[in-house]
């Protein structure tokens, strides 16, 4: 059942008013910021922070991603991280992708394995054996692929795409090599000829595209890079070669000027296996250099659409026809190119209902010199709010990767987080206007009617993940210590991961987990759309008493190469209770769960309402 009318493309949007004024003609250079959000560090109220407690909590992941000089683009893109519950013990564990010290190591073998960290409870981690993969791993996606009630994993990499199912002991076991036997596969240690590029998967998204209750897979693919003879210094040969340079400095080549690879779509059989359905699902696909992939229901028609952030070229907004066949409508929706009509280096994407109108808006990260953009869903396309918010001014010098729209401080408004760090070590040379290491950033957002607010969280604690410059790539959300507040794990390239524990003042919260009917409860003859067992795609609306409504969707693939928790975190500020809680299931069923008190963690199963609840500490 649709929540809203489907898009009517090419129908007029309503023009907005002129944005906030930024100072007078007489004023010197720096204009005043847009309308400010009340409360925060500048006003002297408790600031809040995301404090890095990785070391004392046993999170000892250290990334390897080639050599410091970054002679190839493969070495610059770094790792992702997945948050999932291994062993169904109720706390969230971590899996990191991993690369190697050199490109030569990949050719010689053995390759890297995924790295697994078990949450022992309360957010203390201990390393566990990996699943035994061998490769150079990049993107991760989570979901219940076989419908057995636990969370499985798909790992993408440079020449690798592996399905891993969780067994009864909570271990991830390789089930399917999706590239097996093809030239897309790179097997570390096996002889390889120059001139062949493996398939380079970056970000992944697991979701049910065709409404059969089984999770399908969208795999974003990047660029054709020959690992045996990668281009160095210039692209092409002879007099018409093109130097690989940035602001006059020699840098690694690509992706621009190299061949983009086509994304893949795999349909899930429901038993943990996937089969390639790219030709049917992506009939007019134009290969780009995909870096980020996220699924969400754009137009409120109940099926899952896909946004693909491409590097250097137009982004894709793939509209689902409900049967898992996708059509790109990004240009007419106003989200293919920058406001200036240029392809930007899309890096990461995150969704959230920023303006409380019960549809999903999204944030898109980009290269330095390009802003992190915020697009507001207008039901018939998107409106670019980047400039009225002042985001270009704030983010122009940053190269941002992973991104989240999350209510860290529990006040009912979403914050914008970006994980930052340049691709080029040469960024530290003189006169680049930017730097290689960059501090991660968090902003309070306010978008209500014509009111706009953007205020950067200024960290006061040197242990804040927002404090020191670093080189971040993937990141994922999850409540690791069970206090009800979302924490953030950030994977850095060539360095240790950070675990940003939520140290914002406690607002009242409601934490919700949505689950579809268990596999045993399904009727095989039931031809209606089904909700996946893990609740993927479920849409939850919460109406606070006296406050603005909030909406969340169960979709774990957000940010960059990473998978966040399926638990949904609602902030209620000072309110102790809410007025309504409604769940729209992918099957079409709507469950209205009525009013309730804040400070709880709820599990809702389709058709059965709230099946468990516990008080938050």
């Amino acid at each position: 059942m649709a929540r809203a009318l489907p898009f009517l493309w090419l129908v007029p949007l309503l023009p907005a008013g002129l944005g906030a004024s930024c100072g007078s003609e007489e004023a010197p250079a720096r204009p005043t910021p847009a309308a400010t959000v009340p409360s925060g560090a500048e006003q002297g109220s408790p600031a809040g922070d995301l404090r890095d407690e990785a070391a004392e909590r046993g999170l000892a992941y250290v990334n390897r991603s080639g050599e410091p000089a970054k002679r190839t683009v493969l070495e610059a893109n770094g790792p992702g991280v997945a948050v999932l519950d291994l062993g169904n013990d109720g706390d969230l564990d971590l899996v990191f992708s991993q690369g190697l010290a050199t490109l030569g190591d990949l050719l010689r073998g053995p390759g890297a394995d995924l790295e697994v960290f078990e949450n022992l409870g309360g957010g203390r981690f201990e390393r566990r054996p990996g699943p035994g993969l061998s490769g150079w791993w990049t993107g991760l996606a989570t979901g219940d692929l076989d419908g057995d009630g636990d969370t499985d994993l798909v790992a993408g990499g440079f020449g690798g795409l592996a399905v891993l199912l969780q067994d009864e002991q909570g271990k991830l076991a390789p089930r399917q090599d999706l590239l097996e036997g093809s030239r897309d596969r790179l097997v570390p240690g096996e002889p390889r000829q120059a001139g062949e590029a493996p398939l380079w998967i970056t970000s992944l998204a697991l979701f049910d595209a065709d409404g059969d209750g089984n999770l399908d897979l969208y795999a974003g693919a990047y660029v054709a890079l020959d690992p045996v003879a990668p281009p160095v210094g210039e692209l092409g040969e002879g007099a018409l070669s093109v130097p690989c340079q940035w602001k006059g400095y020699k840098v690694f080549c690509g992706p621009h000027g190299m061949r983009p690879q086509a994304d893949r779509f795999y349909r899930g059989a429901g038993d943990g296996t996937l089969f390639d359905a790219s030709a049917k699902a992506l009939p007019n696909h134009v290969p780009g250099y995909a870096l980020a992939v996220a699924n969400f229901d754009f137009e409120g028609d109940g099926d899952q659409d896909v946004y693909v952030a491409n590097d250097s070229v137009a982004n894709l907004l793939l509209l689902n026809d409900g049967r898992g066949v996708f059509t790109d409508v990004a240009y007419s929706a106003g989200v293919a190119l920058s406001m200036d009509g240029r392809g930007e280096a899309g890096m990461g994407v995150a969704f959230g209902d920023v303006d409380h109108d019960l549809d999903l808006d999204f944030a898109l990260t980009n290269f330095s010199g390009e802003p992190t953009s915020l697009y507001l869903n207008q039901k018939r396309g998107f409106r670019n709010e980047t400039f009225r918010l002042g985001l270009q001014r704030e983010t122009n010098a940053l190269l941002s990767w992973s991104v989240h729209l999350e209510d860290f401080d529990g006040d009912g408004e979403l914050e914008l987080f970006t994980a930052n760090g340049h691709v080029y070590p040469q960024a530290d040379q003189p006169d680049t206007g930017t730097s290689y290491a960059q501090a991660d950033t968090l902003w309070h957002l306010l978008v209500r009617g014509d009111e706009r607010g953007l205020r950067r969280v200024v960290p006061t604690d040197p242990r804040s993940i927002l404090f020191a410059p670093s080189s971040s790539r993937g990141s994922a959300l999850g409540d690791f210590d069970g206090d009800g507040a979302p924490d953030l794990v950030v994977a850095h390239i060539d360095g240790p991961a950070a675990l940003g524990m939520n140290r914002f003042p406690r607002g009242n919260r409601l934490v919700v987990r949505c689950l579809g009917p268990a596999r045993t409860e399904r009727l095989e003859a039931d031809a209606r759309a089904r909700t996946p067992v893990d609740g993927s795609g479920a849409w939850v609306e919460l109406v606070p008493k006296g406050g603005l409504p909030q909406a969340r969707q169960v979709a774990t693939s957000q940010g960059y190469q990473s998978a966040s928790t399926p638990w949904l975190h609602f902030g209620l500020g000072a309110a102790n209770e809410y007025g309504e809680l409604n769940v729209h299931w992918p099957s079409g069923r709507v469950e209205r769960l009525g009013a309730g008190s804040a400070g709880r963690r709820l599990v809702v199963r389709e058709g059965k309402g709230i099946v468990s609840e516990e008080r938050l500490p």
Partner: protein
Amino acid sequence: MSAAWIAALALVFPGKTRVEAQLAPQAEVQTDATATKERWRELLGIDLPREVLGEGEALVAPQGALARDGEALVLVARARFLTQAPAFESAWKLLDGREVEAATRADVEIEKARLCVENDDLARALRLLLETPEANAPRWPERAEAWLQVGRAWARSGELQKAARFLARFVELAPRHREVPTALHLLAQEALERGDGPFAKACVSRAEELSKWHSLWKVRTTQIRLTPEEPLPRIGLAQLWLQAGDAAKAKLALEALLARHPQHAQGWFLLGEAERVAGALDAAQAAYTKTIEFEPEHVLARNNRGTIHRLAGRAAEARADFEHIVDGPRSAERTALPAHLALARLLEAAGEKDAAQRRFARYVELGGREPLREPAR
């Protein structure tokens, strides 16, 4: 509305413009300044702002030779914006409060507005550019850049309808400007809002064409800079200018090539093409002759020289060129086809009917479809 617009878009590649032709003859230093600024524009165009800074900071400093040249200040400010942090403040500091020559004051003010746009200070940008918020034209209506920045500021404010008029005028005033694709993109978005899909499509198509052209220009210019002795990038650049209809710029590229490679036949041929496009048929003929000197079997050069001879009434010379082609080793090539027809028509006009028929039969045999007798105009 749409038809008029599409017609306006067709102006994107009009005729020639040549900076040198507009130079005042009196001051050599002015020529130097013009050349310097042209070089800086090129450096910015190929993403080398550091080089502009290296040269420019001293020249635009208060005691520098270009201290009062607003155009020069703007270029160095742009280089600062691209290389310094904080970008806006660094660029603004250079422009704000500087006394510049009256003729370049508008450049500085428009650039300040551009900086405000880049800094999300949209209301201030509009105040700098417009007398009143309702104004239909910028303070400097003769400056294309002013129209562009008003359009960008309105568009970023969410006011695409207001932006459209300014962007359209920008495209009219500066149809080959490197930011025309930006204007066309915004016009396409505005058209989509109105539900005018065909117009949006036309804008997108033209924007893509122009973007591709500018990308190629950037690549060729970079290659020439890195390997100045290589002929191919210069040939490529000249072809780009010819494609854009700017024979003067094509000539400049070819003259630079031929100064280094005086026996480069293809360079001479393209120079002939540039002269021909510019209407200088004598110079074109001379360039084709040089081509043939270094590559006697160059079909196109010989054909074009023959055509010029024919147009000038020099039938014998024309016939000699066409006969050389059709009796030569490359006579069966597709590029030789026009020479077969031209020769047949020359013979027909001279009353040599049998010879004309024989030549025409060969023309048809090779795939020609035009009639022997030239259709009346």
